[in-house]
Structures are given as C-alpha cells and as structure tokens.
C-alpha cells in the first residue's frame, strides 16, 4: 500500500500509471527494447574488448623473433582473437596446398575470406542497436500522439480550455517521447562505437594476415 502511494506521488511513475493501455503498451515496448539494447551493448563491449586484447597480445608475442612454425603454434593457443584465427586458417590451407607453388593471390583471398567471416560473427547484434536507435524515437512519438489524442478528448468533455486543464494531459503524453529518446541515444552511441571498433579489428587482422602470407610465400620458395 505504501509502495502504491509512493508510485502515485512520484510524478513520472504516477503519469505512467494513469496513462491509457496503448500508452502503457508503448512504454512497455520501449522498456523491453531498452533492456535488449543495453544487454547487447554490454555483451559487445565485453566481447570486443576480449578480442582486441587477444589480438594485441598475440601480435606482441609474434614480434619476439619467433619462426613461422612457432607463430602458427602460438596461434593455436590463442583461439579467440581474430588474428590468431586467421593465421590458423592460413596454416590449414598452407598445409593443404603446399605443393601449389606461388599463389600469393590465393592466400590473400583465403585470409580476406576468413577475416570477413570473423567480422560477420562479431558484427551480429550490432545491427539491432542501429534498429533501436532509429525506431525508438518513433515508437515514443507514437505514444505521445496517442496520448495527446486522448488528452484532447478528455479536455473536450470537460468543456474548459485553460492551461491547467490542457497541460497535464500533454505532459503526460510527452513521457513516451522522452523515454524513446532515452532508449535511442545510448543505442546510437553504442552502434557507432562498435562499428568503429569492428573496423579497427578487421584492419588489424587483414594487415597481419597479409604479412603472414608474405612470410609463408618466402618460406615456400625456399623449400
């Protein structure tokens, strides 16, 4: 009972409770979208952070003057980073086509394909952030428009048009717009952040893979 009165006395929650079913549904949808997008933001952050760390550590280890064999063995141990995965893939193909001779273009293609696959994997769910960022304001706006329609209807029934009568309904309706923006802003920011991060990871992996291809080729010619 005390909790209920607390809810009513709070202006924001009181407004939410007093609003109609459509507006409530609107708010519920926005809340679900918000929780989902924040879950994705946190998840992607942890995931990409881990991958970047692995990549960096792997490349740092590679610079210690190791031979190709050792580097490839090292790549097997680092399994989560993008660069080690691409290296392992290259090694597999290298073993398959050992006798193939000079095929730099093919190697590069193999590397690029693997990088793209990895990017695809890491890119999953990021698109959802963009969707939320674009649609949440509209969903909120829908709630507002609906609320204002109802508010004007009630005002009409009351037969008075003073500010005291008009304003509360409109302010009640505007809650959903605020909520929509509240949901959209972090989603858009997260989307841009992750897109930037992903392209960085991709570039790093491609560069490293290209280097390895050159090394492998040299080795191939030697043998």
């Amino acid at each position, binding site marked *: 009972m005390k909790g209920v009165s*607390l*809810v*009513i*006395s*709070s*202006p*924001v*929650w*009181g407004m939410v409770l*007093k609003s109609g079913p459509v507006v409530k549904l609107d708010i519920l949808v926005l*809340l679900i979208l*918000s*929780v*989902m997008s*924040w*879950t*994705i*933001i*946190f*998840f992607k952050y*942890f*995931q990409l952070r881990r991958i970047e760390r692995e990549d960096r550590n792997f490349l740092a280890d590679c610079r210690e003057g190791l031979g190709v064999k050792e580097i490839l063995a090292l790549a097997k141990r680092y*399994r*989560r980073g993008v660069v080690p995965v691409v290296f392992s893939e290259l090694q597999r193909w290298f073993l398959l086509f050992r006798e193939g001779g000079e095929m730099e273009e093919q190697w590069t293609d193999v590397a690029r394909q693997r990088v793209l696959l990895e990017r695809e994997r890491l890119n999953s769910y990021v698109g959802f952030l963009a969707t939320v960022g674009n649609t949440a304001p509209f969903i909120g706006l829908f709630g507002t428009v609906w609320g204002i329609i109802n508010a004007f209807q*009630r*005002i009409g029934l*009351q037969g*008075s048009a*003073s500010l*005291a*009568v008009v*304003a*509360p*309904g409109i302010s*009640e309706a505007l809650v959903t717009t605020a909520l929509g923006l509240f949901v959209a802003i972090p989603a858009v920011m997260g989307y841009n952040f992750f897109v930037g991060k992903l392209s960085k990871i991709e570039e790093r992996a491609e560069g490293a893979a290209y280097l390895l291809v050159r090394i492998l080729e040299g080795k191939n010619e030697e043998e």
Partner: protein
Amino acid sequence: MKGQEVNKGIWFLSFMLALLLHGVVGAGMFFWHPSMKRPVIYSPSFTVALYSEAPTPTRPPQKGTVAVKRSSAKVQKGKSAVSKAWKVKGKKASRVKKPAPRKKISSKAKRKALLEKALAKVEKEVVMGGLSTGREAIEIRYKKYYDEIWRRVKASWILPEEILTGGSNLFAVVVVRIARDGALMETKLDKSSGNEVYDQSCIRAVKKAAPFPPLPKGYPQRYMELGLRFRPWQ
C-alpha cells in the same frame, strides 16, 4: 564449444547489468520530483489551525475585537489565553516570526514565568465563558461573509484534471487579505500541498474570484485575513 559457454556467461552478465541499470534508473524516478523544492513559509500570524478545525475567520479580527470590547482586566486574560496558545504550539511557535504585539505578550508571559498560573487563569476563563463566547459571536457574525467568499472562490476554482481523477488527499491553505471595500490586497500560500500545480490552481482561484463584496459593517480593522482551506473534493 568452450567459446559458446563463455559467450553464454557474458550474455547473462550483460543482461543482468542491463536490468540493474534499468532498475537503478527506474528507482531514481521515484525520488525525482520536478517540484521538489518546497518553500517553507511561516507567515507571521496565520496560525489558523491553532484554535479550531472549522474554517473560521483568522486571528486578526479576534484580536481586534478583544482589544476593543473587553475591559483591561479581561484583556489581560485574553492575552494569557493567547500566550497559552503559543505555548501549546511549542517550539514551532518560537521559530515563527511573530508580529510585534504578540511578541510583547509572550515576553510578558515569560516574565511571569508561571505557566501553571496562566493555565489556571485560562481554565477559569473557559469556565466563565469569557473569551470563548466572544469568539463564537464573532464567528457567527462573519461566518456568512466567509461562506460567500468561499462560494465565489470555489466557483472560479479549476482543478487540474489529473488531481481530480487521482483522488489524492492534497491540502493547501491560502491566506487572503481583503480590504474594507472588498478588494483583494494579498494572497499568500500558507501551507503548500507539496504539489505545485495544485497550489497554483488555488491561488489562481482566489485571484480570479476577486474583487469580493465589501467587509461586513462594524468590522474593526482595515482589512480582514482569511485562511482558505483547499481540498480537492470540495
């Protein structure tokens, strides 16, 4: 396979973090009030609730008639009654900025430093019906005027719809000062209901209802002060 497991853990952690974030923000909404700052106004002599629950003319008229009608001895008694009233109010009263005459009274009472004695005097007075009958008479005399004012204010009172439907028990006291010719001299929010919109609607109602009919004849003071109590269901 192992990576899948790890991902699941991270998904779960992220979901919990997201829920936590929303919970914190949602709970913060409970405590965030746009009209949080609530001015504490202790206006000098508007202690309406001190004497009676019924909406009555406030103290200034009473004080005036006491001064005019009573003999000096009785004035003394009346004063002690007033001082008792202040004592009943206790510490709060001492914090209130009192108008000059009453200050003098209370200091006098202090000089006596015998609360018992004062109480005995008041008791005697109540038994004799000295002061209280006077007050009642005044109440009856001005009740009609008060009712008229209240009727007019109510007629021009527009309640925000959300409060009407909300069924909340808001309560505001607005003190109105009316000049002899019925002109509105001053409106002051004496007790805020805590809801700014509600308070404003009350004050607006008073301003809209002005000017009022002239004060009843024989009213001793230059102006009359009324405490209007606004409750949503009225």
